[in-house]
C-alpha cells in the first residue's frame, strides 16, 4: 500500500499506539484493559506500520525478531509467579508493595505477570503475522 497519507500517519501512530497499549496494560487492574488487550494493540501498531512502510522497514525498526519477546515474557510471568514462594507463600499469590509508586500506582506481582502476558502476546501474534506475510 503506497499511500503517502498512511505512510506519514503511521510514523506518528506507531509511538502513539504503543504508548496507548502500555496505558491499557497498566490500567487493567482497575479499569477495562490488561496485558492481553494491550499486547494485541501493540501488535496492531506494528502491523499497521508494516502495511504502510513495508515489512523489512518495520523489522529493521524492531531490531530483534518479535519471537524473542516470547521467552522474555514467559520468564517474567514465571518469575513473578514464583516470587511469592520466596516469601513462603503459595505459587502466584499476589504480593504488593506497601507504598504506591508515582505514575504507575500501587505495584504488585500481578503487574509483572501482566507485563509478561503483554510481551508474549506481542511476540506470538507478530511472529505469526510476519512469518505468514514473508512466506511466498
Amino acid at each position, binding site marked *: 500500500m503506497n499511500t503517502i497519507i498512511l505512510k506519514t500517519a503511521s510514523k506518528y501512530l506507531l509511538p502513539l499506539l504503543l504508548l496507548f497499549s502500555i496505558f491499557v496494560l497498566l490500567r487493567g*487492574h482497575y479499569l477495562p484493559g*490488561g496485558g492481553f*488487550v494491550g499486547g*494485541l494493540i501493540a501488535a496492531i501498531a506494528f502491523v499497521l506500520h508494516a502495511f504502510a512502510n513495508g515489512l523489512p522497514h518495520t523489522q529493521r525498526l524492531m531490531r530483534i525478531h518479535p519471537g524473542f519477546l516470547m521467552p522474555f515474557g*514467559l520468564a517474567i510471568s514465571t518469575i513473578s509467579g514464583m516470587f511469592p514462594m520466596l516469601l513462603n507463600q503459595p505459587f502466584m499469590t*499476589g504480593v504488593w508493595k506497601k507504598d504506591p509508586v508515582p505514575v504507575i500506582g500501587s505495584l*504488585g506481582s500481578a503487574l509483572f505477570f501482566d507485563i509478561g*502476558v503483554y510481551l508474549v502476546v506481542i511476540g506470538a501474534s507478530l511472529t505469526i*503475522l510476519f512469518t505468514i506475510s514473508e512466506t511466498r
Partner: protein
Amino acid sequence: MDSAVEKLPILFVCILLYIIVLAIPSVRKNGVRSRLSPLIPIGAFLFFLLGFDGSKQTAVLWSHELLPTQLSFTVDGLGRLFALLITGIGSLIFIYANGYMKGAKYTQRLQSFLLLFMLAMLGVVLSDDLIMLFIFWELTSISSFFLIGFKNEDEASRKSALQAIAITGLGGLVMLGGFIILGEIAGTYSIAEMSNPEVIAAITSHAWFAPMLIFILLGAFTKSAQFPFHFWLPGAMKAPTPVSAYLHSATMVKAGVYLLARFSPVLGDTLIWNTALISFGGVTMIYAAFQALFRTDMKSILAYTTVSALGIMVFLLGLQSSDAIAAVSLFILVHALYKASFFMLAGTIDHETGTRDISKLSGLKTAMMPLFIVGILAAWSNGGVPPSVGFLGKDLIYESTLAFPGLNYLFTGISVLTNIMLFAAGLLVGWLPFRGQKISHKDIHLPTPSLWVPAAVLAVLGMLFGLFPALINDSLINPVATAISGNTENIHLKLWHGFNTVLYLSLLTMGLGVLTYAIIRPGARLLGFIEYAEQFGPKRLLHAIANGFIQSSDWVTKTLQNGKLRIYLLVILGFLVLILGYVVLSETTFTIDQEMLTNITIYEGITVGILFISVFLTLFSGSRLAAVAAMGVIGYTLCIIFVFYSAPDLAMTQFTIDTLTVILFVLVLYRLPRFIRLDFSPRHILDGLVALSVGGLMTIISLEVLQRMPEREISDYYALNAYLLAKGKNVVNVILVDFRGADTMIEIVVLSIAAIGVYSLLKLRLRKNEKME
C-alpha cells in the same frame, strides 16, 4: 542389626553407577572399563554367596502411608538361587563377552545393556512388592529388547527384538492387571505378607480369583516362552551369543518360572493353576523338543531345547507334589549350568569357524579338544547320564510323574519322550560338530581361554554337583523347595536309589536317545519340512495380527490425517455436534423466559441489521477479499453488542482480535485467486449443514445457560474478593492475572507454542533431497 538384605540398595546403586560408566562412549575398543566389567557380577555373586544362607530375610526400605506399595526386598532360598545364577553365570558371561567381542564395535554398549539387564533380573527375583516386581519385570523386557536387537543394522535382528518385546511386554501388562487384582483382594502388595494362611484362603476363595490367576499366568507364560507364545525365543537368537547364553539359559526366560515358583505357595494347588500349568507346560515341552530335532543351526536347537526345558519346569510346578517341587528346584540349577555352557560352546564355534550349521561342521575335535570335552560334559548333564547332576534332576522328574495320581502313565510317557528328544538334541550340539572328517578350514585353532574356560567351569560344576550332591543339597536346593512349597521340605539328593522303575526309565531314555541321534540326519530336508509346518503355527497368527494392525493404522492415518484442513474441521465439529447434541437435545427444555427479555432499542436493531447483511455478504460474495472484510464487520458488530451489554473488556479484546484476524486472512488469501466459484456442490451443502448445526447448538446452549442460571457462588466470590484480596477493581482482569493466574500462564505458553509452530511449519522447509512422502 544390619542384615545383608538391607545392604541390597548399595549393591543396586553400585551396579547402576557402573552401567553409567560403561555407557559413556570410549575411543578405544576393549578399554579398561570393559575389561574390568566382570568384576561387578563377581562381586555381586560373592555378596549373595557369603551374605545369605537361604533363610528368609525381608527388609522394607521405604514406604508411605498413602501408597499401597512399598520399596521392599526379600531374600529367601528361591531368590538366592536365582540371584546366584544371575550373578554367577553373569560373571562368566562377562568374561566370555570380553573375548567374544574382542575388536568388535560397541563392546561397552553391549556390556552396559547386559549389566542393566542383570540389575533388572536381580530386582525381579528379590523384590517383595508386586508393583516393584512388575517394574523390574518390564525393565528386563526393555533391556533385552536392546540386547536382542544389538546388531541394529540387521533387519532380522530388529524384527526379532520387536517381536520379543511385543510378546513379553504385552504379557507383562496383562500381568500388571493380575497383580493389581491380587494386591486388592489380598489387601497387601507384599508377597511375604500373602503367605499367611488366612490371606491365602481369602485370595483363593475370592470371586475374582480366576481372572487374576489367568492374567498372572499369561505374564509368566509369555516371558517363559510357553506354547503358543514360544516363538519369540528362537527368534531372539539373532542376538550376539553372549546375550543368548545369558538371557536364554539362566535368566530372562526363567523369570516366568521364577514368578510361578514365587506364587506357588499362594496361588498353587488350585484347579486352574494345576490344569493350566500341566497342560501348557506339557504341550510346550514335547512340542519344542520335537522342533529342536529338525534344526541345523546350533543356537536354534538350543533355543528350542530351552523352550522345552522351560515347559518341563512349568509342568513340574503344576504337579505341586513334594517330589515335583524338589525336581523343579534342582532342574532350574541343572538346566542353567549345562545350557549356558552349550550356548557358549556354540558361540565359540561360530566365532572360530564362521558357521553354526551342524550339517556343515565336523571334525573339530583335533583343533578344539577342550571344547570337545565341554561339549561331552554338557551333553552328559543334559542327557541325564550318571553321575552328572542332570541324572539327579531327571530322576526326580520321573519320580514325581510316576507318583501323580490317575494320570501317571500319560505324564511319565510324555516326560520320557521329551527327555529322549532332548538327549538327542544335546548330542547334536555337544558331540556331532567334533566328530567325523576334519573340515577344510585350515586356520581353525583353539581360541583364547576366555572363550572356553567359562563354559568349562559350568560343565565341570554340573559334573561335580552330581558326584557330590551334598554340596548343594542343604545350602541351595532345600531352601528353594521350602520357598516354593511354603512348607519346610527335606530333600535328600543321592545318585543311587537301587534298581527301580525310575532307573529303568532313565536307561530307556538314554538308549532311545542315542538311537534317535543315530537316525536323525540334520540337513536342509528336515529344516525345510519343519519350516513348512511352521507356517501353520501361532507365529503366523501373530504376524497376521501385526500386519492387520499396521494396515488399519495406515488406513486411519490416511483417512483422518490427510492434511486437508476441511476434513480436520469436519471431524472435530462433527464429533462435537454428535456428542454435545445428544446431551443437549435429551436434556433441554427449549423454553425462553419472556420476562428476562429486554426491549430492543433502535441502536441494537441497526447493529443486528448490519450483522445480518454482513453475514449474507460473507456467504455469497464473489470476491474473497470482500468476504473477509464482511467477516471483520461481523466481528465489529459483535463488539458493539458487547458494549451495549456493558462488557467493555470483551469488546476491546474482540475488537483487536478481529482486526488481527482480518489482517491474517488477507495475508493468506492474498495469494489465492481473487474470485470464488459459486456453484453449489454437495460439498458446500455439507459444509453449510455442519456450520448450521454447530451454530444452532451453540445458540441452544447459551439460551439454556440463561435458563438454568448456574451456581452464582463462584462469580459472587470473585466479585466480592477482587478488591479485598487482589486489590483490583476490574474483576475480569483480576481473575486473569490473580485468581486464575495459573490458567493464564498455561495459555501464554500455548500461544508461544502456536507461534513457534507456525514459524517452523512455514520457515523450516525440507530441502529437495529430504523430501518424503
